[in-house]
């Protein structure tokens, strides 16, 4: 008996584990054997010390490279008994045996035999399957079951495993299954009627097209992506404050609904800001990597958490697109996959150049479609109004000419003439012909002036006072050319009477110094006044209206007291004082008084333009209000050229302990940036999507496949590396990957292809034979049947009861959750149970707080959005039963469903049958009707219980027994499970 047959016999004599191992060994072709059986054993037991990690490597031996293993004598191809590795594994000597006893590892008998078999066959190595780009494999020729390529791949494996495919599922099952898979909702009545009345292949395809074309499709499939994007409505960590980022969620929904090709979808999210002429939506898409957590806790180091966020971006990018776990290379070179620590930080360097640093900015105003439309309309109206305002018709030109001419007889401002002047320092104040005052001598340090002025000629009452200051002389003792008019008071002096104080109002100036606003010159307080640093060397003007217009009187004068006691010579030097008789709304603090008169005429005088001005103002208010409602969404923005960070390797992942400088590069085992790419995130995105990238397309199709079939062709969706599981159908995976890429990365087309396969359409029925041979349905000889996701469980109940609000997008909502769930330190944010339509939105719109996610959702395995969640592990727990039995959302759904059942017929049996039709889309069996009728008859509610039951179900009136029946229907295994 030759050696290998001996080993195989021993194989078969082993227990379960050995059987499966041998099974795989025999089924695999020679090169596959290394990848499927041998490498995982070596990876598990040997590579940690004899693999890639140069720092952990022992005895300078690598078992991941054939040359090293053979040269070192560890493996002697063809001769297991002479191979040091085998000798060591079999050794009983604690000093010799491998793996060392203290490592905790130990090969099983089956593993050890597999290694021996492989060495006996020549110890052939092969590169890891997923690191070679996929090529389109030949479709198996056998089309006896179906001509669909997917089915031909699947059928081949079914036959190999001594199975046979199931028949097509019943129409009602297919209907529910495909609707739930493509939209996350049960079919609409219209869809159901159309298909069930004529369940032909054509009708099925039409149904699929209809489902793929609905808004609900994007709302369902976006969820998968949001898990990967670690989307949440809060920032995480202690404070866990709100973060407004729901526009990104809506972007993802829209991207799915418009079937944005996966490559463009990738470019936008990873590097939308770097794309030439990027539009607002592309920039919004970069919020993908702003979903990282931020720590607002007091005293935290922003740099520490910025670095943590950037690492998360690197890890998430590699996980999401390439299905590789780069994370461990933060601290040391990856022990199993070709990502060294230097590789990691080279990749990190691409992502280390954005502006954000554990704080919200940079953000971008990101209006919703409705807001954008409204803003566009208002902006358009505004432009029109402004144009009409600037170019008025209907006699405007004539009217303004007449108006302007009137100032020739009654000037806007008339300078006043000095009648008396008093200075505490006996200064002299000269006045020239134009009315300009100037101080003759050197200014004192401080002074208070009393300046008495004659009123101008005329009869109209005076409305306003104006002071113009001219730039001060540049020579002189005081270097500061500012003026500090700390207080101005004005009195009227009639010859026979005591001076009386005049009240001033509406102080305004062309410019005021901060803290020295012109109002402070008339506030009755000396501590500040009007000044104009840093524009001290310019001319300025200030206007003060008289609270009551000053009537003319024979011999009447006004007296100004100008308190300028600040010091440092901050006194007026050359200035002018004038008054006006015109309406105060014509008088503006323009240096050149005539400037703006035409605007004054438009706004204050000419009726047609006055109306327009009012409309413009209303319009501007509306724009302002709307803009304040536009959400500001955090986005990625590259640092300016001069501010770019340098990246170093972080020793053992510690950002405070940095060593060698690295430059940006992709991991060398996976090629280089595509030609023509810049060294930036966009380059990384192009590298991910390039046809030479071996992983991206495989990872993407596997993910879609897993959502449909409950398990990926590669079960470890999160790990396509050497530690991950081997594909059940490697050829099919590659075929789908190439198909996806060559079909323009269309997810809708790929999904359509999958659901049109017979594989997908099989009945889910189990047989003992199938259960025994293939309990996990690896070979897909039956249709996929598994519990709906957290979101679908909720959405379906709302949909069949008629409660569901079908509104697309918008801010996240707070459907009822039990009181007291949120008790987050100091945030002060509160959960407010929604009333009205927001109470019944789809689960994707439920507010997600990272430290306290919606309990009904997490009970059904949804994540908290803290980190990228590649795969949800499905559980089946009593806590789930409690949710669907007792949570108010499901009670209200039962209430609404009971009303529908009651109103469907006068007969109880009919009502029950209708309930089953509405929830399960099929005829009830007589056994079911009898059983539920029996339940109905056995239930008993007294009047208090009735009232309470109705209230719990959100009803004013109704039948509590029917609510209980509806509650039963919403808890059936068949209802909670994809058929």
């Amino acid at each position, binding site marked *: 008996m030759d050696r290998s047959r001996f080993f195989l016999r021993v194989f078969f004599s082993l*227990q*379960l584990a050995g059987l499966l191992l041998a099974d*795989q060994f025999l089924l695999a072709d020679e090169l596959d054997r290394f990848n499927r059986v041998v490498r*995982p054993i070596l990876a598990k037991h040997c590579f940690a010390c004899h693999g890639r990690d140069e720092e952990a490597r022992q005895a300078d031996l690598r078992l991941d490279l054939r040359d090293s293993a053979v040269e070192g004598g560890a493996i002697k191809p063809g001769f297991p008994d002479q191979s040091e590795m085998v000798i060591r594994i079999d050794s009983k000597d604690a000093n010799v045996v491998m793996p060392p006893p203290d490592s*905790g590892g*130990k090969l*099983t008998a089956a593993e050890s035999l597999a290694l021996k078999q492989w060495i006996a066959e020549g110890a052939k190595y092969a590169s890891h399957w997923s690191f070679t780009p996929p090529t389109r494999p030949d479709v198996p020729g056998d089309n006896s079951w179906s001509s669909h390529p997917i089915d031909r791949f699947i059928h081949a494996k079914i036959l190999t495993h001594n199975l046979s495919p199931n028949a097509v599922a019943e129409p009602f099952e297919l209907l529910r299954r495909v609707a739930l898979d493509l939209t996350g909702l049960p079919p609409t009545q219209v869809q159901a009627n159309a298909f069930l009345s004529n369940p032909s292949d054509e009708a099925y395809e039409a149904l699929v097209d209809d489902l793929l074309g609905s808004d609900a499709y994007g709302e369902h499939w976006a969820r998968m992506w949001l898990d990967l994007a670690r989307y949440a409505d809060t920032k995480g*960590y*202690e404070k866990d404050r709100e973060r407004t980022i729901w526009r990104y969620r809506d972007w993802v929904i829209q991207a799915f609904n418009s079937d944005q090709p996966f490559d463009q979808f990738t470019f936008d999210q990873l590097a939308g800001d770097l794309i030439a002429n990027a539009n607002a939506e592309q920039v919004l898409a970069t919020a993908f990597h702003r979903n990282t957590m931020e*720590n607002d806790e*007091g*005293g935290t180091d922003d740099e520490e958490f910025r670095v943590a966020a950037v690492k998360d971006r690197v890890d998430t990018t590699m996980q999401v697109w390439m299905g590789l*776990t780069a994370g*461990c290379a933060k601290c040391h070179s*990856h022990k199993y996959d070709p990502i060294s620590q230097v590789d990691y930080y080279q990749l990190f360097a691409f992502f280390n150049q954005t502006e954000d640093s554990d704080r919200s900015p940079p953000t971008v105003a990101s209006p919703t479609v409705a807001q954008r439309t409204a803003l566009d309309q208002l902006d358009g109206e505004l432009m029109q109004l402004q144009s009409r305002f600037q170019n008025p018709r209907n006699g405007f030109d004539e009217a303004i000419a007449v108006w302007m001419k009137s100032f020739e007889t009654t000037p806007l401002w008339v300078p006043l003439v000095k009648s008396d002047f008093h200075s505490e320092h006996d200064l002299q104040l000269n006045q020239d012909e134009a009315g300009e005052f100037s101080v003759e001598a050197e200014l004192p340090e401080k002074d208070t002036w009393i300046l008495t002025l004659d009123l101008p000629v005329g009869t109209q009452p005076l409305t306003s006072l104006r002071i113009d200051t001219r730039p001060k002389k540049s020579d002189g003792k005081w270097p500061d050319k500012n003026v500090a008019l700390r207080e101005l008071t004005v009195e009227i002096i009639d010859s026979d009477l005591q001076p009386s104080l005049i009240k001033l109002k509406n102080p305004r100036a062309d410019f005021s110094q901060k803290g020295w606003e012109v109002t402070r010159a008339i506030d009755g307080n000396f501590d500040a006044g009007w000044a104009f640093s840093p524009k001290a060397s310019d001319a300025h003007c200030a206007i003060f209206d008289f609270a009551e217009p000053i009537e003319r009187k024979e011999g009447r004068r006004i007296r100004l007291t100008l308190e300028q006691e600040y010091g440092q010579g901050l006194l007026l030097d050359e200035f002018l004082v004038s008054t006006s008789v015109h309406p105060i709304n014509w008088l503006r603090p323009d240096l050149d008084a005539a400037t703006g008169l035409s605007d004054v005429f438009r706004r204050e005088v000419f009726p047609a333009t006055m109306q327009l001005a009012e409309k413009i103002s209303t319009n501007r208010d509306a724009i302002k209000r709307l803009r304040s409602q536009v959400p500001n969404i955090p986005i990625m923005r590259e640092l300016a050229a001069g501010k770019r960070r340098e990246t170093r390797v972080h020793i053992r992942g510690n950002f405070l302990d940095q060593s060698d400088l690295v430059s940006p590069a992709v991991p060398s085992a996976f090629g280089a940036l595509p030609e023509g790419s810049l060294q930036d995130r966009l380059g990384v995105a192009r590298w991910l999507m390039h046809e030479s990238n071996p992983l991206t397309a495989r990872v993407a199709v596997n993910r879609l496949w897993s959502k449909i079939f409950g398990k990926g062709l590669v079960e470890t969706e999160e790990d396509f590396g050497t*530690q*991950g*599981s081997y594909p059940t159908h490697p050829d099919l995976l590659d075929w789908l990957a190439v198909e996806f890429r060559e079909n323009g990365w269309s997810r809708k087309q790929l999904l359509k292809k999958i659901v049109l396969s017979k594989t997908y359409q099989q009945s889910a029925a*189990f047989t003992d034979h199938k*259960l025994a041979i293939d309990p996990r349905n690896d070979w897909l000889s039956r249709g996929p*049947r*598994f*519990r709906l996701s957290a979101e679908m469980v909720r959405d379906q109940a709302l949909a069949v009861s008629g409660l569901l609000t079908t509104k697309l997008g918008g801010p996240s909502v707070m459907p009822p959750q*039990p*009181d*007291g769930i949120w008790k*987050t*330190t100091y945030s002060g944010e509160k959960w407010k149970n929604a009333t009205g339509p927001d109470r019944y939105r789809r689960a994707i719109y439920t507010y997600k707080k*990272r*430290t*306290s996610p919606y309990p009904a959702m997490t009970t059904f*395995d949804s994540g*908290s959005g*803290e*980190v990228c969640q590649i795969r949800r*592990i*499905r*559980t*089946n727990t*009593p*806590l789930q*039963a*409690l949710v669907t*039995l*007792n949570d108010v959302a499901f009670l209200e759904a039962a209430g609404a469903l009971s009303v529908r059942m009651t109103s469907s017929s006068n007969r109880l049996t009919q009502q029950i049958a209708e309930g089953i039709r509405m929830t399960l889309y099929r005829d009830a069996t007589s*056994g079911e009707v009898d*059983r539920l009728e029996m339940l109905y008859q*056995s*239930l*008993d*509610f007294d009047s208090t*219980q009735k*009232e*309470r*039951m109705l209230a*719990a*179900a959100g009803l004013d009136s109704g039948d509590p027994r029917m609510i209980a029946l509806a509650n039963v229907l919403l*808890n*059936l295994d068949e209802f909670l*499970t994809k058929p």
Partner: protein
Amino acid sequence: MNTLPISLQKVRAETRRHFFGKAGMGFGAMALSSLLNSDSSAEQQGVSLPAKVKSVIYLHMAGSPSQLELFENKPALGRLHNTECPQEYLEGKRFAFIKGVPKMLGSQCEFKQHGENGQWVSNHLPHLTKVIDDLCIIRSMHTEQFNHSPAQLFMQTGNSLLGYPSMGSWVTYGLGSENKDLPGFVVLSSGGKTPSAGKSLWGSGFLPTVYQGVQCRTDGGDPILFLSNPDGLSRKSRRKTLDAISDLNRFQHEKVGDPETLTRISQYELAFRMQVSVPEVMDISRESQKTLDLYGAKPGYISEAESAADPRRLYKSDDPTFANNCLLARRLVENGVRFVQLYDWGWDHHGSSLGESIDETLPIKTSQIDQSIAALITDLKQRGLFDETLIIWGGEFGRTPMMQNNVNKELKPGFIGRDHHPHAFTMWMAGGGIKPGMLGQTDELGYYIAENPVSVRDLQATILHQLGINPHEFNFPYQGLDQRLIGPTDEGSVLHDILA
């Protein structure tokens, strides 16, 4: 092939269907004995040591109490009181809030030695001194994190970032629960807030969600969310509806044959049983008055602080919420719950705002816990549960020997506080297999550890070890690494010195 041995893959596939267990046998035990054909897999899993204890009660004082007012008697610090901190302690250090050169702060309490071991304990913990000979006090704890959220996560999950399974999840993943009608990992909180890191502290991370901690609420609502039937639906009626659900599900199973349907039927039955078993175990009014008095517990008491926006100002020294939780902890382990985690919030005594000071708030908080913790130990002993239970007490880090000075530069009553201190702090352990006594010392100011430093990973390793789990072997493959509670490197080791 998967990365797990095939036999374990099968176990995984099975276990994800189960929440608690089957017919009186712990689910973990079931998973690891009845389903495994190959014994070696159990060894690889790391659950192979003889267990010293069956259950854990972990008392986490969220915010981190000051060791210098409880267990660390430092006369030298007292002598330096109100003088500037020596420069050698400040260079190259990062603090959360301390600015510039702070002043030293002597202990704001009296210390005396107690018990056979002469343990130094402050006057804030008079009841604890009565059971002091049952404790092993570790005065040389240190951690890597100095902010609450990451430090709590590090303590409870072994990683300062979010997304890793908590200790309780690891333990129930490994061992399951002893009671088929109760969750294996229960969390109780008091102090008016959930701890800083939120529910992630009892999350299951990458482990299946069945292993996440179940928060039992004691504030008047359902003890477990959605446990109560809707108002108006009697238990009898619920029974009838569940019978109908079961029957219809059986029809479905006859038609399709999916074993998962049978699991669902049994989970609905379990839910029905829990509707009774959980309120029962959570009902402390079933305890004798003597027991209630021992703990200072008051059934049905709902503290004002529990619903306040800022509970710190409402703390009262006779608030029995924590005492109630201690009594519940005993009831839970008595009923086979594997891991009971108490979080008490309000221990972050910076002295920078009202209700968070060493001089005024700390004594209030200690009177809330002192009697009940001593009672818990006494009660466990008199019921013979002490030897099969491991009790752990501590915060997420310590507090500085300097006063915090960012708000008040000088000592001011009601505003005396200390900043976060990761370099040295005190925790204690008690119960089965723990040798009473002490481990480790700090320097004369209590700033650095002087001997026998104990890391968080050492503590975690020791806890697993006491439960019969090898901390180095016990793992779950995720993200290319055999993930462990004690982290990827082997720096953590079991504290054999404190084991009996």
